[in-house]
């Protein structure tokens, strides 16, 4: 963390870099310097240009203007391979693995072990991967196909791949978005081990509390421009956030809700599945937000999927407004006014090759049909624009393809899709994953408004502070069971964690 000795150039310097896309100036005269041995956090709102800057450094895009220097020497980055050879390794925001190949084949793609001529030596490749894992302390099987791994393990493969290059600069674009707390600890441990006087890390994250734990300095971008660089030890979250969003955010007052009276809109009784769930029962009332807390794997997503018929239920009764209903598929659920926003945006939530507005009205397209079944484009545009404004989706127009949006803005489109559909019950699974702090507040506000309009909302989140901040009541799960339903006033970080770890006390933790 030592300040750079005078005269020694920084490990990596970025100066006057600009990059435009049709209709968007993603970066405008941005600078940044990474010192030897440090972890530099890069923060900014969704669409601020963080990923774009990193893709320039990784040789994926070429800048319109600007220079890069490494140890004082100008860097020319001609393609991803070239950037890697110069010591810049990147872990992308979106997964970049080949699911059909094995772990070792993924890590060394493009750098295969050759036997004679064109022949591969996979045994040597697996040995090399095993050496790498031993060095990093990772428990991965080199010969396992990547498609069989959980998201967290896939992330570990990505990290191992990035570290397998003789990297000097390691760039991580939201590496923790899909990880739970324990996995984040492992990641940080890897970062600490990687850090040396010859190396440095650029770390992008929307999780503010991580910055203090891992970073030495914080560089803030806003609207494609460089704002400031702060020393982590000398600043606080509030300052960083206000630099990011350029305004003060509302305070974080918690709801004072208790179970509203009246008939529940959705009630679930004795829900069980073969895989995991055991006898889960709860009610959600009109006008309330029911938060689901628990550790990863506790079964929160499974509850949502079982309710909407995405997974098979073994037993359990679901009633809407007191009437028992049969839900076999998400389409049935939607017909009954139950909307489900899944945690896996790429696979289930969004059509990348379609426009922002088409995606927003996708779930409610029925409402946009005119005479003879023609689609009423003008109304779609109006709705599209309304939500782009409400959620502050950063896009040049509603006709932009979702593929071209930044990761967080894609997530906002998914949320808009369900807000645009008039559902009585909305189930949101990790709605704010990858979303910046400012936009989170906006989404919290919108969820509150929706509840205020009499909708029943179920929100699943791995971020406990978020659940405490938003939910009127908190359902806590552990090992497929509901261990508690607490009124917000009665809930604290400590007692929720306590209920969330109810069953793991009996030594189920491996090693």
């Amino acid at each position: 963390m030592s300040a750079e000795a005078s005269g020694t150039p920084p490990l990596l310097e970025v100066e006057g870099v600009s990059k435009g896309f049709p209709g968007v100036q993603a970066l405008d005269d941005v600078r940044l310097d990474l010192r030897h041995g440090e972890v530099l956090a890069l923060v900014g709102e969704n669409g601020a240009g963080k990923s774009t800057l990193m893709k320039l450094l990784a040789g994926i895009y070429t800048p319109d203007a600007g220079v890069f220097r490494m140890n004082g020497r100008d860097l020319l980055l001609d393609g991803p391979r070239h950037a890697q050879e110069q010591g810049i390794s990147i872990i992308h925001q979106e997964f970049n693995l080949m699911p059909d190949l094995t772990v070792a084949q993924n890590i060394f793609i493009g750098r295969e072990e050759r036997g004679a001529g064109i022949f591969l030596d996979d045994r040597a490749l697996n040995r090399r991967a095993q050496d790498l894992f031993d060095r990093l302390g990772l428990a991965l099987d080199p010969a396992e196909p990547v498609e069989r791994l959980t998201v967290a393990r896939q992330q570990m493969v990505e990290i191992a791949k990035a570290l397998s290059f003789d990297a000097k600069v390691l760039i991580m674009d939201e590496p923790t978005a899909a990880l739970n707390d324990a996995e984040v600890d492992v990641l940080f441990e890897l970062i600490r081990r990687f850090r040396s006087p010859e190396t440095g890390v650029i770390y992008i994250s929307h999780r503010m509390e991580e910055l203090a734990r891992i970073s030495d300095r914080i560089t803030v971008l806003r609207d494609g421009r460089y704002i400031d660089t702060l020393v982590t030890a000398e600043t606080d979250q509030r300052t960083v956030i206000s630099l990011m969003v350029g305004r003060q955010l509302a305070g974080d007052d918690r709801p004072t809700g208790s179970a509203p009276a009246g008939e529940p809109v959705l009630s679930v009784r004795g829900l069980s599945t073969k895989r995991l769930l055991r006898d889960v029962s709860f009610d959600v009332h009109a006008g309330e937000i029911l938060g689901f807390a628990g550790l990863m794997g506790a079964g929160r997503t499974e509850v949502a999927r079982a309710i909407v018929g995405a997974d098979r239920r073994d037993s359990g009764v679901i009633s809407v407004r007191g009437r028992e209903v049969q839900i076999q598929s998400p389409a049935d659920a939607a017909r009954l006014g139950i909307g489900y926003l899944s945690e896996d945006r790429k696979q289930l939530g969004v059509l990348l090759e379609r426009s922002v507005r088409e995606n927003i009205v996708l779930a409610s397209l029925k409402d946009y049909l005119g005479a003879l079944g023609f689609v009423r484009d003008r109304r779609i545009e109006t709705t599209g624009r309304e939500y782009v404004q409400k959620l502050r989706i950063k896009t040049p127009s509603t006709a932009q393809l979702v593929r071209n949006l930044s990761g967080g803005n894609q997530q906002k489109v998914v949320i808009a899709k369900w807000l645009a559909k008039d559902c009585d019950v909305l189930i949101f699974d990790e709605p704010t994953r990858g979303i910046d702090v400012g936009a989170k507040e906006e989404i919290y506000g919108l969820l509150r408004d929706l509840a205020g309009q009499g909708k029943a909302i179920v929100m699943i989140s791995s971020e406990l502070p978020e659940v405490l901040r938003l939910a009127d009541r908190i359902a806590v799960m552990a090992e497929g069971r509901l261990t508690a339903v607490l009124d917000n006033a009665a809930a604290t970080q400590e007692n929720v964690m306590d209920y969330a770890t109810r069953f793991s006390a009996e030594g189920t933790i491996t090693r």
Partner: protein
Amino acid sequence: MSPTTTPQRSDTPSTSAYAAVDAGTPRFARLRGSLQQLLAAASLIVIVVFFSFASSHFFTANNLISILTAATVTGILALGTTFVIITGGIDLSIGTVMVLCGVMAGVFLTYWGWPLWAGVAATIVFGGLIGLINGVNVSVLGIPPFIATLGMMLIAAGLSLVISGTKPIYFNETPEFQSIMNLSIIPGMRFPLGVLIFIVMIVIAAVLLSKTIVGRYTFSIGSNEAATALSGVNVRRWKIIIYTMAGLFVGLAGVLSASRLSSAQPTGGMGLELEAIAAVVIGGTSLQGGKGSIVGTVIGALIMAVLTNGLRIISVPQEWQSVAVGVVILVAVYLDMLRRRRAG
């Protein structure tokens, strides 16, 4: 997430990365790939057993050899196109290009009087050249494979007619040409050289796909093309190589089919590409790319050949044979999808 996942406490000691990542997938998951091939092989055996009982003329050495002979040309086309399909592409031109290659063999050997070896080599290279053009169209010009090879399919169909003057070319200068396919290599049996060539090509294709750099990139591109490119692999170049390779297989198939008939027939070939693709798909290769095997393709080609042969032997009319093959394709692909859905 595996069903046996145990919840992790957030205070798990972080020094060991082992603890944080949940329990891995069960070992038997890895057997599943070979299980799929076993199932395809099992269906082949069921069909063979069925026809063996249905007719005493079916399970004889001679008939089995004629099934292999019938499978040879489509099979070799299917081998090459397996690579293309695993990359997530498709090649609709292989049928008519094969015919064009036969015509070119006639041009080299009969019109130009080249020696046998040179004419055969030139024909195979010619097939590779067409594959190269397909590859460039797909990966450099960015034309979708379906369209690029559809265009080539029509071009090749036309060129065959133009070059041959719409008449068959006979190999009068090189009568030995017909032995490439037909020469009997086992005394006392009608085991043709062509079938041996097919078997050799199966081995070559299988080794290429599973043991070489070409195969690795074939899977990698089909699995996630963007990620492969980001890893620094020159995806364009490898796609060109893969299409070219498939073209070489087409060239060889052209030689064998012309040799079989002792003449280059300038018409036909259309529809053969679909038979080859059907063989690949029955064999469990995914049209989405990323998954597939040579063993599967061979089994697929054999299933098609056995069906055609067996239905004829039990005197099912020609029209119904096509219906049966169509049904088999649908059933095979549906079963495969069921398996996948359950696995995923």
